[in-house]
Each structure stands twice: as C-alpha cells, then as structure tokens.
C-alpha cells in the first residue's frame, strides 16, 4: 500500500472507530432509521464525486450502482416512514458519519486519476464493511418495529453485494504496492 493509500486507510479507520464507538450506545428505532438513511445518502454523494472525477469504467459503473441502489433503499425508507407517520431522529452516529464523510470528500477532491480511483474504491470497501457490520450486529437486533427490521434486512443484502463488488473493484484496480 503506498503512502497515499495508507493515509486514506488511516482516515477511514478513524471514522470507523468513531462509528463503532457510537454504535455501541443504545439507539431507538427512529435514530436507527435516521442513521441508515444518512449512510445511504452519504454513499450517493461519494458516488457523484466519483462520476465527476473518475475516468475508470469500473469505478464509474460501481458509482452508478451505488446511486441506483442506495436511492432505491432510501426511497423505500421514505415510503415506510411516511406510512408509519414518524420522523427519524438525528443523533450522534448520524452526525459522526456526516462529519467523517465531509472530511473524506475533501480528501478525495484533491486527487485524480488512479490515486482518486484507489482512494474512492478503498473508502467504499471500508465504508461498506463498517456499515454492514453495524447494520447486522447493532441495528437489526435493536430495532423493534417489524417493517423497519425487514427493510434493514433487505438493505443489508444489497449492501453486502456492494461490499463484494467493492472488493472486486479494489482488486481490479491493483492499488496495493
């Protein structure tokens, strides 16, 4: 891993630590809904950045998939909260995700070419790994409203597919070394 990738990985690790620490605190259904929606929206923003900067077909296809899939999941979440007539609650974990993503976008925007592609791909892999772990081990067990639990379980299937896709993208870009 080159110096740049090490730096980005370290940044991601710090963000992951923050998320993990906050994820250990009890969250209610409305906070979980807010955080899940926020995480999806942030990945959409990363994807738009990738489409603006990257010239790699693999990266651009991945980014388009992120926009398509996360939009579908978030649309389903909006439909659910509308049906349940509830309002998701902002919380510390959502705020940490937003802050971490802003810092990461600022880093990514200074890059171009393969450096950007590798940084974006590595970040996507790490992001999905921690989000998936949080959804599976913290959110789904904690949620009490069945339709929200069902949506999170459906979303997790999608996000796990993204994680595998990201693994292939990182491997294909040959970023290590």
């Amino acid at each position, binding site marked *: 891993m080159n110096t740049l990738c090490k730096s980005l990985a370290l940044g991601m690790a710090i963000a992951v630590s923050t998320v993990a620490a906050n994820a250990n605190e009890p969250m209610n259904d409305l906070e979980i809904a807010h955080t899940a929606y926020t995480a999806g929206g942030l990945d959409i923003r990363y994807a738009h950045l990738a489409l603006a900067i990257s010239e790699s077909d693999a990266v651009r296809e991945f980014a388009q998939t992120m926009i*398509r899939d996360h939009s579908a999941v978030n649309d389903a979440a909006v439909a659910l909260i509308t049906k349940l007539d509830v309002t998701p609650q902002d919380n510390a974990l959502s705020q940490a995700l937003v802050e971490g993503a802003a810092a990461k976008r600022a880093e990514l925007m200074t890059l171009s070419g393969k450096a950007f592609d590798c940084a974006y791909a590595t970040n996507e892999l790490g992001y999905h790994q921690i989000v998936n772990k949080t959804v599976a081990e913290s959110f789904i067990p904690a949620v009490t409203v069945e339709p929200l639990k069902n949506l999170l379980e459906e979303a997790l299937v999608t996000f796990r597919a993204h994680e595998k896709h990201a693994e292939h993208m990182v491997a294909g870009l040959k970023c290590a070394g």
Partner: protein
Amino acid sequence: MRGLTPITRRRFGQGLGAAIALTEAAGRTRAHAGTHEVAVRIDDFTFMPSKIEILVGDSVTWENGDVAPHTATALDRTWDAGPLERGAHGRVTFTEPGEHRYLCAFHPHMQGSVLVRHRDGG
C-alpha cells in the same frame, strides 16, 4: 429474439398465475404443445431458478423481488429485460435455440442461463 419491454404488474396481470404454474417443472423441457411462459424470480441478488430449459417460442419473465433494481441482460447484449424495479416484470421470447447466458447489468455477479431447445426435442 423478439423485442422486450419491461411490463408492469398490472399489465402482466393474469399471465403471472399461468407462468408460476408452469415453473413447477423449471429446469425441464415441457413436452406438451404450444408456447409457454416461465417465471424467474429475483430475490436476494439471485436468479431463481438460475438455469432453465424452454422450447423455441417460449417466453421467460423475470420478476424482481429485491429493493435494488436489477436487469436480466444477455451476455452479448442482444436482449435485456430491464431495468426492473421492485415488483416489476420483464419478458423475453426466445426464438433461437441454444444456451442464452445472462447477467444483471447492474450487479454482474448475478448470472443465469436459458437453454432453448428445438420443438422437435433437438
């Protein structure tokens, strides 16, 4: 290959019941005459069944049960059942015998195949 258009649940309508009824023998070529429609369900990023056998002139309908959109797209891009949002259907009628391999263009790890046999059993 006949042209394909994604069709809505409403338009798909009554045909779905018949299609589902025909899938009990998915993976096997049906012996009786006439053309038929075979249903492939998309759930958890998997085509189910992933391999089917039909006869020339039969149709395959893909129904997406996932929250994420999918397609069923020929590897050579000669036909495309999609994009399919959750609950949507897409249908292709196969007029050429042979193995027609396909994938989801959005999630290429999702793959399946349609084996189309001549009506005389070839």
